[in-house]
C-alpha cells in the first residue's frame, strides 16, 4: 500500500492567506481529490471543513462525469451563487481543488483572477520533490510501532462488545 504525503502546509497556507486578504473572501481551502482538506485560511472555525471537503470532492468528480458526457475532459471551474455567500471551486492539476468562499458578488472577477494566478504556484509546490516527502514520512513514522498502536486503538474503539456484537468473523 502506498501513501500520499503532504509536507507543504506553511507555503500553501501562506498563499491561501494572501488570497483571502486580496479578494476579501471569507475563507479559502485546498482539498484533495480524495476529499481531504489539506490547508485552510480565513474564517474557518465555524465551517465544517471535513464535511465540506468530502462534499466538494464528490461534487467536482460528478461534474467531471457530466463534462465527459457532453464531450469535455473536465470543467475547470465551478461557481455556486447564494443569497449571502458564493463558492468558487477551481481545479489545481488533476488531484487538488481550491475552494474560495466569498460574500460580495461583485468580486467574482477578482476571485477568478486571483485563484488563476496562484494556481500554478500551488501546483508547483504540490508536485515538488515527492521523493523527499516520502523520505520525511519514513523518518517521521516508526512503522511497526505505529501499526501496533493503531491496531490497539481499533480494538478499543471499534469494539466487538458494542451493540450486542458477538464473534462473527470467519475466513471462508
Amino acid at each position, binding site marked *: 500500500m502506498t501513501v500520499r504525503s*503532504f509536507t507543504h502546509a506553511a507555503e500553501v497556507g501562506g498563499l491561501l492567506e494572501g488570497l483571502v486578504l486580496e479578494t476579501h473572501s471569507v475563507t479559502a481551502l485546498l482539498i484533495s481529490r480524495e476529499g481531504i482538506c489539506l490547508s485552510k485560511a480565513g474564517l474557518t472555525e465555524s465551517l465544517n471543513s471535513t464535511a465540506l471537503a468530502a462534499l466538494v470532492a464528490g461534487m467536482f468528480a460528478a461534474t467531471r462525469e457530466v463534462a465527459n458526457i457532453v464531450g469535455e475532459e473536465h470543467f475547470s471551474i465551478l461557481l455556486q451563487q447564494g443569497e449571502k455567500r458564493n463558492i468558487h471551486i477551481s481545479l489545481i492539476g488533476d488531484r487538488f481543488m481550491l475552494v474560495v468562499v466569498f460574500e460580495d458578488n461583485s468580486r467574482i472577477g477578482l476571485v477568478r483572477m486571483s485563484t488563476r494566478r496562484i494556481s500554478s504556484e500551488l501546483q508547483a509546490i504540490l508536485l515538488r520533490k515527492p521523493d523527499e516527502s516520502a523520505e520525511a514520512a519514513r523518518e517521521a*513514522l516508526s512503522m511497526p510501532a505505529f501499526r501496533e498502536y493503531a491496531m490497539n486503538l481499533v480494538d478499543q474503539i471499534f469494539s466487538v462488545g458494542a451493540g450486542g456484537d458477538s464473534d*462473527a468473523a470467519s475466513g471462508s
Partner: protein
Amino acid sequence: MPHLDLDERLVTFKIVYSGPGFSGKTTNLRFVHKTLAERYRGEMLELDTEEERTLFFDFFPVFLGNIDGFSLRFHLYTIPGQVYYEASRKIILQGADGVVFVADSTEHRLEENVESFIMMQQNLAEEHGDISDFPLVLQYNKRDVEPRLEIGCVERHLKMEPGIPVTESIATTGYGVMNTLNLVSKEIIRRFRV
C-alpha cells in the same frame, strides 16, 4: 490511498461500504455513528432521495486518537447501490483504502449481490490494477431474514479464492456491525507502509 500530512501530523484512511441497493450500507454507518462516543466522531452527512436510497453518498469522519504525535482518522463512506448510479459509485470508490461489501442475505438477492460485487471489483481494478491484496471484507447482512442465503454462496458463485474475511450481521440491531468495521480497519492497517 492513505493520506499522510506531515505538517498537521495526520494519517487518514478511507473506508467505503459497497453493495447492492437496500442491502444495509447506510444502516451500518448509522449504527457506527450512533455507537461511537461523541469525541470519536464527526457529523454524519446523508445525501439520499425521498425513497431513502442513497443518491450520492453518506459520510462521517472517525477520530481514533494519537499515535506518536500523529492523529489517526478514518473517513467512512457509503455508495449508492442502485445499478443506475454507476458514475457516483465510481467516484466515491476512488481513493478507497478498504471496502466493506454489504451483501443482502435475502435468498432471492444472490444475483444482485454477485452483479454488484463484480462491478465493485471492476471499479477498484480500474484504479488499483491487481486487487488480490486489496483490504476487503464481505459482510452477509440481514441474517434475520427467512429464507436466507447460505454463508459462502456469493464467493462460490464468483469462484473466488478462499481467504476473504467474512462477517455476519443484522445492521438494524447492530449485530456484527462494529466487528466488520474492526476487521476492515485492521486489514488496512496491516498493509499500511510509508
